[in-house]
């Protein structure tokens, strides 16, 4: 069973259901590997062998009793540390929450438990998911298994490095402006942001409520589809969760067929500002699709020019309010200054010491965007840009079934390269942000290694709202075109971590 940890979740699920391997064996294999290699990648902030194995044992017991509760029964999974878990500390990558063990499970976590999927541990992220490199984690950056001196993307770099490093067969991420898709592109893994509301946000420590969405980070498209089927669906705890299910993503993957497919290339996201090797990979994807019979059309989304600006007003505004609850009263850190401080002093000192610089920057920026006299110009205008982006997308989707863009402007950059330049860091999400502003689904699929640095590149597939099935269908087509060329997934080419 040496290749357990490099197998896809779908294969592992097959091994378990056919009793060729137990959940305990598989979970043990991943625990062995992550205990050994996590010091290299810093993917996990927390794991607990006994707890994970107890869950695996329960899954095996159910199987012994003839009960299979989900298609991923017994397959272990890593969970981003901004989802609440009653049996593991939840920090959101922040000092202010160090040691907090939540009193409730996130809905997604509950669904994983109900699907009998053992949780391997909690993965690293930029503090409160604010960042695109994990360098803003209070617990140190995660490292990219392709090159440990590079970032694995963010905010979900813990989950993406866990997948690329084979420290987990599946992972949960959250995506506010690209935090699932960007790390997936950086690590050669697959990452999907479902339609806003497709997966319950209850128990996700909110960054920007109107943008946040939970989704899968996996080895391949089928695994992602299987995982979305497990975690999706309406939740009465989340008033913004979609009232009706979106159907089976797995079914959509199985129906993948390029015939009659119209693929849109967004004019604003296909030329300037992309690393040449990334652009070359993208052009190659488009050529492959055309060769396979897809019709390629160029679509115009002029409002995308303002997407990043609108995003960096809406996100800080909502975050400034969402993060107000970290006040040292009911949970988390409390810093009591010297002298005879009032609770106001205690709150201010706690927040000054508990939050990192990027979080403070965004809270203050958001407070500014909402403050009286500025609201209309900033927050108000940003919300209008959102409308324009939706209008542009609505028009584009009359011309094409899906839109394709490079997921990220560059391949993985060096740790430390952009950490002191907020604006440069913000531009990493230029291609992923529009999907969050408009609520539509998007997925990143690996489409090669950039010629100049040999690092993974990703292509992003965007579909209309609620058409997550369409997104998975086309993702699967793209993936297959590359599998036909490579004979294996890109992620199989990741260097041997043990040797690094």
């Amino acid at each position, binding site marked *: 069973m040496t290749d357990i940890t490099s197998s896809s979740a779908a294969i592992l699920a097959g091994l378990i259901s056919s009793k060729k391997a137990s959940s305990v064996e598989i979970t043990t294999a991943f625990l062995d590997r992550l205990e050994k290699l996590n010091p290299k990648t810093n993917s996990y902030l927390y794991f607990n062998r006994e707890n994970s194995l107890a869950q695996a044992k329960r899954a095996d017991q159910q199987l012994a009793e003839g009960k299979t509760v989900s298609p991923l029964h017994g397959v272990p999974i890593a969970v981003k540390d901004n989802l609440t878990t009653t049996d593991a500390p939840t920090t959101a990558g922040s000092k202010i929450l160090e040691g907090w063990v939540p009193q409730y499970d996130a809905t997604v976590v509950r669904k994983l438990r109900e699907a009998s999927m053992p949780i391997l541990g909690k993965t690293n992220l930029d503090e409160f998911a604010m960042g695109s490199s994990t360098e803003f984690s209070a617990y140190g950056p995660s490292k990219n298994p392709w090159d440990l001196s590079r970032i694995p993307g963010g905010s979900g770099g813990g989950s993406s490095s866990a997948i690329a490093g084979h420290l987990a067969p599946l992972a949960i991420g959250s995506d506010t402006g690209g935090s699932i898709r960007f790390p997936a592109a950086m690590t050669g893994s697959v990452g999907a942001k479902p339609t*806003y509301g497709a997966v319950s946000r209850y128990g996700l420590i909110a960054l920007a409520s109107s943008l946040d969405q939970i989704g899968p980070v996996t080895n391949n498209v089928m695994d992602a589809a299987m995982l979305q089927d497990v975690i999706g669906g309406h939740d009465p705890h989340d008033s913004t969760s979609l009232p009706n299910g979106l159907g089976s993503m797995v079914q959509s993957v199985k129906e993948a067929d390029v015939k009659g497919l119209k693929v849109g290339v967004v004019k604003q996201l296909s030329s300037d500002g992309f690393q040449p090797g990334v652009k070359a990979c993208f052009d190659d994807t488009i050529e492959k699709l055309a060769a396979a019979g897809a019709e390629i059309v160029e679509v115009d989304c002029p409002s995308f020019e*303002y997407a990043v600006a609108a995003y960096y007003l809406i996100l800080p505004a909502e975050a400034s309010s969402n993060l107000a609850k970290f006040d040292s009263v009911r949970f988390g850190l409390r810093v009591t200054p010297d002298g005879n401080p009032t609770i106001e002093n205690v709150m201010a000192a706690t927040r000054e010491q508990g*939050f990192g610089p990027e979080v403070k920057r965004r809270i203050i920026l958001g407070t500014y965007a909402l403050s009286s006299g500025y609201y209309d110009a900033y927050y108000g205008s940003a919300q*209008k840009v959102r409308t324009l982006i939706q209008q542009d997308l609505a028009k584009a989707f009359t011309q094409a079934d899906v839109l394709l863009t490079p997921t990220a402007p560059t391949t993985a950059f060096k740790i430390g390269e952009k950490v002191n330049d907020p*604006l440069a860091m913000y531009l990493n999400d230029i291609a992923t942000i529009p999907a969050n502003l408009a*609520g539509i689904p998007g997925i990143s699929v690996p489409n090669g290694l950039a010629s100049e640095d040999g690092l993974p590149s990703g292509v992003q597939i965007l579909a209309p709202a609620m058409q997550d099935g369409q997104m998975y269908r086309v993702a699967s087509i793209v993936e297959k075109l590359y599998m036909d060329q490579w004979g294996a997934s890109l992620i199989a080419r990741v260097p041997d971590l043990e040797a690094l």
Partner: protein
Amino acid sequence: MSEITPDLVRHLASLSRILVTDQEVEQLAGELGIIVDSVATVTKAVSGDVAATSHPIPMANVYREDVILPSLTQLQALSSAPDSADGRFKVNAILDED
């Protein structure tokens, strides 16, 4: 150049309940100035007659029925509190408002 002055940063930090040193104020004023100048482009993108979108997927009228669901126990509620007494969360005295 932007309107982010050190005094404004101090005011915003106080609204956000974050203690800031003079040095941080200077630094934040600089950083935020650059960011604000950049994001202020949104004001150029829109005219008055565009509707605001605050929710990406339009929905309305989502309600729960008026029934009691299980609450936490007092012990659970207080389990992560930095300090508590008499079944309540304990905090330093509140700034005298009266």
